[in-house]
């Protein structure tokens, strides 16, 4: 536990070291938030409800999504894949900590930094311009738990497409495909509430909804009571499944790894 804590602190510090990059990112998230909010609001000139979302829900969704982009790190991560490619993974494997546990701890240190410094500022800007919804204290706690689970699901998935580098000479194709599919089916580009029924069913059957749509729906109060517990359970289920698959893939990949000296 002490070890995980120390790794997590390094995760936070790594990103805290570049405040200028953080502010540049906040600016970009804010601009995208405005553009997306106005596009989706144009839909509400014609109707008052889309898949259970009213206009307030939708703009709140837009700013939450911008706030969570970096927290759940959905735009792609290739650090592990690069270590596999250049052979540094050999050093990682000789350490007394499992690489997945290392990166999970690191990511759980990184995520709070991004939530506070990349998430809250654009959301506050959005709150000044649009009528956003705010959760009750109970829902806020559930939302916090859900975001934590979302980070684990996301790391579980990112770990998998990075481990693919054991088998591929060039991991970037898989990376690009994984990022695009997860962006779309997490509800990052459009809320899943806007999807036609069959596509929404597909989205809810995949793990990606647990990365964004589920926490946002919890924030908006779309899940209550047993339904809320169920939503969190689905997230936890995906987190465990993806982490287990990651361990399996890592074990398989490790068995075939050949490091060419260095």
């Amino acid at each position, binding site marked *: 536990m002490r070890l995980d804590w120390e790794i997590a602190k390094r995760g936070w510090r790594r990103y805290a070291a570049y405040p200028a990059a953080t502010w540049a990112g906040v600016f970009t998230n804010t601009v995208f938030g405005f*553009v997306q909010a106005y*596009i989706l609001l144009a839909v509400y000139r014609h109707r008052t409800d889309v898949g259970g979302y009213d206009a307030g829900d939708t703009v709140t969704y837009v700013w939450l999504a911008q706030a969570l982009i970096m927290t759940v790190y959905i735009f792609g991560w290739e650090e592990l894949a690069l270590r596999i490619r250049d052979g540094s993974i050999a050093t990682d494997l000789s350490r007394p900590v499992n690489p997945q546990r290392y990166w999970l701890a690191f990511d759980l240190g990184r995520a709070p930094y991004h939530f506070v410094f990349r998430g809250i500022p654009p959301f506050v800007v959005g709150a000044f311009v649009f009528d956003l919804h705010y959760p009750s204290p109970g829902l806020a706690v559930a939302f916090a738990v859900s975001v934590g689970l979302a980070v684990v699901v996301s790391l579980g998935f990112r770990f998998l497409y990075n481990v693919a580098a054991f088998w591929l000479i060039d991991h970037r194709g898989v990376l690009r495909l994984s990022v695009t599919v997860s962006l779309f089916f997490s509800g990052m580009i459009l809320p899943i509430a806007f999807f036609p029924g069959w596509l929404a069913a597909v989205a809810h059957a995949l793990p990606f909804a647990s990365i964004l749509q589920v926490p946002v729906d919890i924030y908006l109060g779309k899940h209550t009571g047993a339904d809320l517990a169920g939503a969190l359970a689905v997230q936890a289920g995906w987190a465990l499944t993806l982490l287990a698959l990651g361990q399996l893939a890592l074990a398989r990949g490790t068995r075939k790894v050949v490091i060419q000296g260095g």
Partner: protein
Amino acid sequence: MVDGLRVYGRLIAAQVRSQLQYRASFALDAAGTFLISFLDFLAVLVLFHNVPRLAGWSVHEVAFLYATSSVAFALADLIVGHLESLSQRLRTGTFDILLVRPRGTLFQMIASELALRRLGRFAQGCVVFGYALTGTHIDWDVGRALMLVVMVPAGFVIFASVWVAGMCVMFWTTEGGEFTNAFTYGGQFLTQYPIDVYSAWLRRFLAYLVPMAFVSYFPALYILGKDDPLGLPRLLQFSSPLVAVAAACAAGLVWRAAVRRYRSAGG
């Protein structure tokens, strides 16, 4: 100028040859980019699943905006997208090498790469354009055809200028590629929908000051024969080429000012 193009042609031909050495890898990469970019357009279709028209525009008309902007953006990404590597050159000091060669620094940066896989995105734009044509009624005449031929290069120049000017921020901050994304990727996102959905201040900032509205919106109003819901002067619908020239000049000036400020990290 002619000489510059000749040199550019040679440098890029070398790049292209090297990328085609691994044909299977290249084909997979380009096909992947092509397929992936359709998920992006799927978002437009999903949006229109909920409404027949968005701010008075049909799905095919929005597809027209999307396609023309997408093609122009893909070209800009192809030609200048790799300027992002400027950050690395500034950090390591390798920008110095460009300063001692007998060509302009911007020219050398542009001629340093051409990622052919980005043509996948270009192809996607063309397919979406075909889709747009199946559902829009356009009274084709010489003027409209000419506008179509002019708007794509103009849009390309506008996107490329924004890219170049945006990248100059790095001369001050070293990092900052992400800041520029707000204008390039953010600008492209904005041009995919009719600009009257945006609030007045966002339009002034990203559609007129950063002249994104001239990429697809104004020329499209003319080609599709739509009334401007904002009631702006009709002349604007024909001014994209002029705006493109002005944007290119502005970007060139910003680049020169930025390079003059460059202090080597000692590479």
